[in-house]
């Protein structure tokens, strides 16, 4: 029988009902007996874990959820590929059992195949993909996926993008009346040292950026009530939504299209992985914009440039 942990929402296989510990998060849960089944077996003696000392859960634990047998077979190492052999879901369809993504099964599938399949599923079958991603588990794999995707994109697009931005900067400097300090700063961005420093720093610091983004988004989701799946779910949405950044390989418009598509996938992932209403992630993003001083600063720059002034 399969059960879902109410704390980390992970699905696991168990051969008994009653009080037990979630193999994923380690917390104590109570798996109820399916309808028509004999009463649950007595609970095992509680081990000395932090979860066992949770107040309000002495000898009981939170109520787990018994799931119907999955259509695609058991969950685990031998599970079918997510979004692959599992039947299509959606409203009214059979429920998908979340499991590891192809990238997380790359030891079995192969490194590049796992990456490619995850990329393909996340970009071209997002509903199937997000419904099949488990919200729990370590965040190292998703971060590695996003890192690899971004590193490939940056390595290929960095120089053309730098050339285009240099050209645009030159146009702006020649057309606008910028203060001399700002002009020097803009011209400094064209130097090779800046280019290489930016490229290496950007790629090396990407995992930190992903964790920072995940942390901020998760706190805002907590405030809007849209973080039911835990921090791991938010990180998965952040990282597995990075696939469309590959659109940046298309000059000029590709970066914009990729960013917008990536944002759409990101919100999609948050809604599916946290089992949330769509407006909660959107409200979180609006809150982020409202509180971010850079937002006001950016608006101020736009207003200032439009009115031909500078502070």
């Amino acid at each position, binding site marked *: 029988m399969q059960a879902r942990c109410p704390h980390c929402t992970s699905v696991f296989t168990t051969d008994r009902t009653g009080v037990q510990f979630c193999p994923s998060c380690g917390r104590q849960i109570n798996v109820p007996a399916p309808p028509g089944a004999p009463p649950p077996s007595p609970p095992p003696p509680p081990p000395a874990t932090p979860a066992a000392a*949770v107040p309000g859960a002495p000898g009981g634990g939170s109520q787990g959820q018994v799931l119907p047998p999955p259509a695609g077979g058991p969950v685990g190492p031998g599970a079918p590929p997510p979004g692959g052999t599992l039947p299509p879901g959606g409203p009214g369809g059979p429920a998908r059992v979340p499991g590891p993504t192809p990238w997380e099964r790359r030891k079995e599938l192969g490194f590049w195949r796992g990456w490619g399949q995850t990329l393909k599923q996340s970009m071209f079958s997002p509903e199937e993909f997000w419904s099949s991603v488990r919200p729990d588990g370590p965040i190292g794999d998703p971060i590695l996926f996003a890192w690899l995707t971004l590193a490939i994109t940056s390595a290929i697009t960095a120089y053309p993008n730098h050339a285009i931005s240099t050209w645009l900067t030159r146009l702006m400097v020649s057309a606008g009346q910028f*203060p001399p300090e*700002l002009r020097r700063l803009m011209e400094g961005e064209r130097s090779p040292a800046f280019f290489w420093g930016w490229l290496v720093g950007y790629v090396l610091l990407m995992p930190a950026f992903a964790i920072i983004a995940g*942390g901020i988004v998760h706190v805002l989701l907590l405030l809007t009530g849209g973080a039911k799946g835990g921090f791991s779910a938010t990180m998965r949405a952040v990282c597995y939504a990075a696939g469309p950044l590959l659109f940046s390989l298309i000059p000029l418009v590709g970066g914009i299209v990729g960013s917008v598509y990536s944002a759409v996938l990101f919100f999609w992932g948050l809604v599916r992985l946290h089992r949330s209403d769509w407006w909660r992630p959107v409200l979180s993003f609006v809150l982020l914009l409202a509180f971010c*001083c850079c*937002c006001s600063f950016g608006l*101020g720059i736009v*207003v*200032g440039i439009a009115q031909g002034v*500078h502070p």
Partner: protein
Amino acid sequence: MKVLWSPRSRSIGVVDALGITGVCGLLVARFVPMARLPFWGCLLRQRFGWPCLGCGLTRVADRMSHFNVADAWDANPLGTVAALGFMAAALWTFLHLAFRVPVAELDLSDREWRWVRVALVVLVVANWAFVALKYRHPELFHGA
């Protein structure tokens, strides 16, 4: 409200994410002289005469990175509290990642979360009122 303690591990959670955010933000504020950049300043405030909700947060980051809590409070009290929270998260992240110190996790009921949201909205509005009043009527705070 329940306080849950994570098992002893180095797995990264939301407190670690906030800690890393705090470290990066305070390092930038400490070593990049943002306020001295030629284009720095809020044109929105200068143009319309009203500060926004986040007014003073850059100054808070700058002053908190120099451990100047009093002046940071003067710029934006709620931002100072947030910065102190980020610093605490950074310290805890270090302890968690270096020594596998457990991380506390608050488990709030829906009702408690509702109260947290209401309290936060009240705090943000009160904080903005303070900042706006201070900007528009500085004589009330520093004497005539």
